[in-house]
């Protein structure tokens, strides 16, 4: 049975799109059939992060309006054959999305894939509520920083109220993904600790993604970080998180960049 996952946060700029691409790719790398769906109508970005921006023909709105068939709008990843993207429309606005349309598309995608991962826009408006509407599982991306944590708390409340599952009296599975975590700054007390964030949000942890230039590098190249450099710290964190999402028990660690042979030779360039 396919799982519908929403990647959400409330606040913008915390790493939703990066995380959607990385987790989607990680699941595909673990052998799952995955589609990532961009719900940020009018401000799409998932295509760019996935490196598919030149290949967009049709989009989510075209499909909900019947202008294109779903298989025509899906863009297969060139590197990972189990990974596909359904892009958002860049020219329309969010009102073009209807609940019925989204419901139909999600149901069709569930027949075709093991995982349907919805990349939510920031905010709590229509696009965000529609992205979470049909979710079985929610991944709340949070930065260890006060405004992000508060917005996450708000989003968790909305997940418990406005999803189809919640309205049926069932529970949306919720997981916290802490991104842009900087262990050095946390040690100096300049950043909320993992314990603080978990205590405030009382939601189980899916993973901790360390702040890393690898993320920027991957997005520059249009390649999910888990694929672009699988041994990098954020890639390992995402790969582990994907395994936890699949139900595996994986010990929670904060991966750090390993100093490779060359790294030692040339000294700490990154530090």
């Amino acid at each position, binding site marked *: 049975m396919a799982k519908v996952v929403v990647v959400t946060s409330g606040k913008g700029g915390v790493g939703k799109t990066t995380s959607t691409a990385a987790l989607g790719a990680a699941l595909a790398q673990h052998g799952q059939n995955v589609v990532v769906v961009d719900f940020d109508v009018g401000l799409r970005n998932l295509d760019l992060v996935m490196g598919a921006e030149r290949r967009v023909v049709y989009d989510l709105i075209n499909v909900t309006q019947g202008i294109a068939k779903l298989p025509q709008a899906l863009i297969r990843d060139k590197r990972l054959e189990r990974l596909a993207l359904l892009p958002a429309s860049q020219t329309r606005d969010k009102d073009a999305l209807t609940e019925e349309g989204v419901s139909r598309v999600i149901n069709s995608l569930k027949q075709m894939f093991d995982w349907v991962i919805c990349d939510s826009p920031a905010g*709590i408006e229509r696009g965000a509520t529609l992205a979470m509407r049909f979710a079985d599982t929610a991944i709340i991306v949070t930065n260890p920083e006060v405004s992000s944590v*508060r*917005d996450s*708390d*708000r989003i968790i*409340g909305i997940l*418990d109220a406005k999803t189809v599952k919640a309205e049926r009296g069932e529970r949306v599975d919720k997981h916290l993904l802490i991104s842009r975590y900087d262990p050095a700054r946390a040690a100096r007390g300049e950043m909320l600790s993992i314990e603080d964030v978990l*205590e*405030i949000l*009382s939601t189980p942890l899916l993973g901790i993604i360390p702040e890393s230039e690898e993320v920027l590098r991957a997005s520059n190249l249009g390649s999910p970080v888990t694929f672009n450099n699988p041994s990098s710290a954020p890639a390992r964190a995402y790969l582990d998180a994907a395994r936890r999402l699949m139900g595996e028990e994986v010990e929670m660690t904060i991966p750090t960049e390993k100093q490779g042979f060359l790294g030692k030779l040339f000294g700490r360039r990154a530090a």
Partner: protein
Amino acid sequence: MTSVANPRQSPRFVCRSYMAVALAPEPPLVDWIADIEQKIRDTGSFLVGPPVVLDLSSVKLSKSAIAHLVAQLEQRGVRVMGVENVDPSQMDTALPPLLRSTKRESADVSVPAPKARETQREKQQQVRETRSAPATLLLDKPVRSGQSIYFPDGDVTVLGSVGSGAELVAGGSIHVYGTLRGRAMAGSNGNARARIFCTKIEAELLAIDGHYLTADLMDMALRDRPVQAWLEGSALKISALD
């Protein structure tokens, strides 16, 4: 948004009491309205939405002046559901219903009333009162930012934390077995004996019977500790429980 009604059965008919916020205008009215406007700006939605009763004991107003005042408030989003402490001759059907006409000394309704007032009180149907055996609303999940719990009928107990930006309004006391980060308003139906308890305080605002303290006025030494808050006269006091 949760509000659990607790209808009390009676063999003949059912009486219900509702919580309302009482506003007592003071002359000059223009300044008073400006103050109210400021208050709405400061406290957000507190006055906007829930029903409001106008206590006109401190002002002497003509029929048209009352109508004007009601309209002024409505313009600012404050819905007047009733008027009290005004001469019935000043009322007509176009105005909100008169809830009680007799003049009485101002403001509070809920402090255990002197015997003399008791009989008069029993006659009133729309009296805001403290319950002898208050109902309790038990929430077994954290209250998240943006959620508002409104329970005028009694105590609210939360097993979990109350997030920053969340709001609890209880007619009785508030108990939070977790961290209180949002706003807690106890005794909202005029119960000055209501208290607020929490196992860890980081609250944005505490209020009992309309007397409030914002975070910046709270003693920093109490932050992160288990505390209780109560009312002494019109001063909100907070002390550690540990």
